């Protein structure tokens, strides 16, 4: 699977069972990445996409376990470390902001041998700059 996650400056993801932030331009970017394939999300994350009309979104509480090879998983609140072995690629978006957090991105990119292969930036609909990093296995 190809893991997608969004983090703040401290790798935070959630606070008080709520995502730190959201952005329409980021949603469009995620949909374009998964175009032609499958995008797995949790029911919580699906609320972000319910009005987008995309037919390739699959929703399941255990989406990280059920996703197959080459399929995209957008994990907002789910911890990915238990499924590290099946992750083929990581697309990490950065808000470039500091938010409160009590759930953090739980993969150890360097220790697990992930290699940064690509970085790009784009303006969000409400965020000045969102960074997109692609990590592949080293």
């Amino acid at each position, binding site marked *: 699977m190809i893991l997608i996650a969004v983090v703040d400056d401290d*790798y*935070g993801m959630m*606070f*008080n069972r709520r995502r*730190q*932030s959201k952005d*329409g331009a980021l949603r469009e970017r995620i949909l374009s990445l998964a175009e032609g394939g499958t995008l797995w999300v949790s029911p919580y994350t699906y*609320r972000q996409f319910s009005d987008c009309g995309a037919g390739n979104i699959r929703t399941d509480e255990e989406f990280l376990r059920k996703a197959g090879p080459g399929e995209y998983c957008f994990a907002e609140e789910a911890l990915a470390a238990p499924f590290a072995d099946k992750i083929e690629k990581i697309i990490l978006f950065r808000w470039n902001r*500091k938010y*409160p957090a009590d759930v953090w991105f739980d993969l150890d990119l360097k220790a697990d041998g992930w290699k940064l292969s690509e970085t790009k930036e784009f303006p969000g609909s409400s965020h000045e700059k969102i960074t997109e990093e692609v990590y592949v296995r080293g």
Partner: protein
Amino acid sequence: MSVDRKIRGMRRWIPVYLLILFLALSGCAGGEEKEDGSAQAPKPLDISAIAPYSGSPYVPVNDNEPAFTAEELTAVSFETYSDLDALGRCGEACASVGTDLMPTEKRGSISKVKPSGWHSTEYDTVEGKSLYNRCHLIGYQLTAENANEKNLITGTRYLNTEGMLPFENLVADYVKETKNHVLYRVTPIFEGDNLVASGVQMEGMSVEDEGEEILFNVYCYNIQPGISIDYATGESKVEEKQKNDEKESSRPEDNGSRKEEKPSAAVSYILNTNTKKFHKPSCTSVKQMTEANTREYTGEREEVVSMGYAPCGRCRP
């Protein structure tokens, strides 16, 4: 959210809209009515119930549930600031933050305001050196308040950037993205006649989605790691522990006498000299730090804190 729920939600707001004028006048005072008809201030936070600072710049209050009443929630923007008290101290500030309150130009100077307990004090261990910042209760990015003395307190750099800023960002970006409102209240907590607040309580709730996206109630500590503050006056000094360490390190290394060995509470930490945070060596954040910002340190936790480093919120060393 289902259509039914949306309609129910809209109906819920009808009486709220009728109270807009009242709310604009009374702000978030809420609570029960006093005999003269005005609203009573909400019950102040009992600071004795707050755990002492232990590494996190903020802690949840009431399981993150704010104390707003249904009558206080309004989808019409407003902002209110309490008058200064007899000691010149700020009180509660409250707003229903909407895009119409947000700044359209860069912040102006606020240096003329001298909040209660203000001192211009610098330490090398503090990011940017200045111990105190003029901390907006309601951040400039939310309501565009510049040099409003009713909205500025004496707050440490740590309170400003690690405690309050993350919540201001949370609210600002939600409002900008959704064009919704967030009911937002910041209350400085002064103990007795202290001129410097011990901390601030921050409450927030997104209005139109009834807290689905934004909901918090936290206490942020007005502390600075490694610095001891007299909250009565705002005077400050390097913590005794650090002073002792400095004396120790200034002694000749080997004068023939045998130095007493320290107790073996030494632990290895990784310091980020840029963010001034310290981590466990196993912390995933360490792997993502640049080499230039990375420093290894073996010693007691207190020593690291006294050097001005704050513990990572992720690995909680």
